[in-house]
């Protein structure tokens, strides 16, 4: 104990000395961060981002990385480094990987990956032998943290499972336990619903029935496209699994019973919100608006957090050495400030960033999960998402 305390003090003193050197004008090393995205990413087409669906991106998250870059100037300088972003946009995974290799050859070791789950998985597979670290900005697929996990792929964005766990905790805490589920036709809708089923079971929600919905106005399909007809029966909550959000947004206020809607509309679990008022969030939100000319979402927060994590590792290790940074980021001394009140770090068993999840409405944050009373033996944040015992990720 005493030895480790002493060591900690000594490290602090050394870091302080390093900071002094930096002020004295020691030559700064460039610490470049790649930012990888797809040209035609369906998630960012104008029609979709301008609909401002809850829990969906409202634009490309890149400005989040830019905000973090300017926030991190002092921290980087203290480590004798200058941070830079290298944005690369390509047509598909193959082209993106080629660009990534090029950047790697010029010395880039950290990449923010802002692509859909399958592309992210492919980039991670292809780059597995390279000494680098990838930060998943926007793919929520549970599989990326499970069967497809990779030791060099860190997940800033939460998994669907973390989001659904947060919602389930909230519903249990207010005793709205009887759930009617509406599930969309897409594979992505079914994947979200599957996560929700696991969460419901974990926390004791009762799903009375799951009904399939379709988008449209075809009268022959009305039992599946009409909200009132879809919502007969007894329930406390209508849960909607709709990855796009277009159907879900029309569910609140149209249910047959006067009950709340949750999931992809209504009460939505999200990992950031522009109306959040605590832990310095208003300051970050206003910096983001200045940069992007729109409000900040969870996706933007991911890009911001990724750059911040790298800067924090540079600050604490006092340099830009890749292996030192990587080990610090994946180690248990890491303390990241996500402006959500808790100390954040990566789970050793699947590289997922542990973080609070917000329960949101279109203009307010109703609650913050882990909800009070949901306890974990080591860290309450680990009540959200796959815990170590149930993880199917194997880095070897």
């Amino acid at each position, binding site marked *: 104990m005493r030895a480790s305390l002493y060591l900690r003090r000594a490290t*602090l003193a050394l870091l302080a000395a390093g900071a002094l050197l930096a*002020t004295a004008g020691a030559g700064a090393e460039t610490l470049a961060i790649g930012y990888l995205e797809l040209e035609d990413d369906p998630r960012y087409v104008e029609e979709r981002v301008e609909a401002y669906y809850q829990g969906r991106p409202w634009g490309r998250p890149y400005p989040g990385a830019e905000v973090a870059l300017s926030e991190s100037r002092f921290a980087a300088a203290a480590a004798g480094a200058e941070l830079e972003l290298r944005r690369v946009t390509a047509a598909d995974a193959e082209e993106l990987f080629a660009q990534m290799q090029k950047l790697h050859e010029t010395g880039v070791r950290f990449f923010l990956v802002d692509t859909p789950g399958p592309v992210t998985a492919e980039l991670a597979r292809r780059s597995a032998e390279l000494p680098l670290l990838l930060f998943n900005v926007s793919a929520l697929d549970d599989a990326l943290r499970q069967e497809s996990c990779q030791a060099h792929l860190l997940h800033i964005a939460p998994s669907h499972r973390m989001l659904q766990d947060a919602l389930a905790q909230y519903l249990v805490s207010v005793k709205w336990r009887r759930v009617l589920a509406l599930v969309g036709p897409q594979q992505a809708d079914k994947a979200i619903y599957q996560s929700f089923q696991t969460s419901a079971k974990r926390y004791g929600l009762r799903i009375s029935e799951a009904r399939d919905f379709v988008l449209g106005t075809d009268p022959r399909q009305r039992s599946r496209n009409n909200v009132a007809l879809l919502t007969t029966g007894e329930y406390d909550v209508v849960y909607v699994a709709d990855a796009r959000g277009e159907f879900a947004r029309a569910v609140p206020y149209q249910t047959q019973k006067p009950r709340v809607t949750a999931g992809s509309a209504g009460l939505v679990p999200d990992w950031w919100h522009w109306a959040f008022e605590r832990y310095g969030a208003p300051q970050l939100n206003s910096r983001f608006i200045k940069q992007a000319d729109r409000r900040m979402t969870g996706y933007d927060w991911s890009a911001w957090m990724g750059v911040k994590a790298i800067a924090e590792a540079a600050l604490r290790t006092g340099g830009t050495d890749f292996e030192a940074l990587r080990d610090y980021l994946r180690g248990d001394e890491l303390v990241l*400030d996500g402006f959500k009140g808790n100390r954040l770090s990566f789970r050793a068993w699947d590289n997922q960033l542990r973080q609070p999840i917000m329960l949101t409405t279109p203009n307010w944050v109703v609650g913050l999960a882990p909800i009070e009373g949901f306890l974990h033996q080591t860290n309450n944040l680990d009540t959200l998402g796959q815990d170590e015992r149930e993880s199917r990720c194997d880095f070897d």
Partner: protein
Amino acid sequence: MQQAKTSTVFIVVAVSLLCLTLSAAGSAATLFVSSEKDHVLTVLDAESLEQLGEIATPERPRGMRFSPDGKRLYVACGDGDTVAVVDVQARKIVGQLDVGDDPETFDISPDGKSLYVSNEDDALLSVFDIESGEVVGEVTVGPEPEGVLLNANGDTVYVASEVANMVHVIDTESLEIRANVVVGNRPRRLVLTPDGSELWVSNELSGSVSILDTQENAVRDEIVFEPRGFRPEDVTPVGLVMTRNGETAYVTMGRANHVAVVDVADREVEAYILVGQRPWGVALSADENLLYVTNGLSDDVSVIDARSRKVVRSVPVGRVPYGVAIAE
């Protein structure tokens, strides 16, 4: 019955002790409590804790400082983008200083002529000349500068950047940064030991206080707070105050709902005192017998007897109380 009797006696003793303590605190002392959400200063009699009135302020009053002569109270009003000037005797706002956007905390030069204000949004420390009403200097600092503190002779100003996780040591003459000292995560408030040799910095996210040697501008020590029954992530220290003899420091624990009593020389936490929800602001009475603590999430002020280390009263104030200032 016996039980009831004992507790009655205890209450009587406690109340009379409290009265003694309070009368010893001086007769005319008043408390000013800033409340972020309803834009008022609540004025309380420090003795009876009766509410004497409310002063409406511009939006979101937070940090407060007295002028060196004690006649004026300056109040940073973040959303009002101004520092309000309160006449302490009259309990009225008599002026506003246009110091820049979103002021939160600041300090006043020993001669009372300048305000050193942290400007969160623009990552600046601004030097504001009160007489001319103008910003006469600016220093770019790390993002979200929070605590600002001048040393006793006014030649150095310390600024904590919440986001850069460092304390900037700035020469007030040249307005140049003399050193950037890396501390814990999310540094918030600052206090100097009376001899000026140590700067104490609360680290909200690390649950600790970093202690800087002001000669070397280097971290010498760290005190980690571990109140019983709380996990490390629930310990979020913010407010700091130190006794005039430099022997004892009081640190508010934020989400852990306690105030830590720290032996300054030994770096030992002697006690944790249970207060209201999310204590931030803290101030000591002139005789240092009473400690006033603002509880941001229970909308009240806890009054602690410093000798018995017990809360003797809790007084409702405005919504989300931020800080407390005592006028003698």
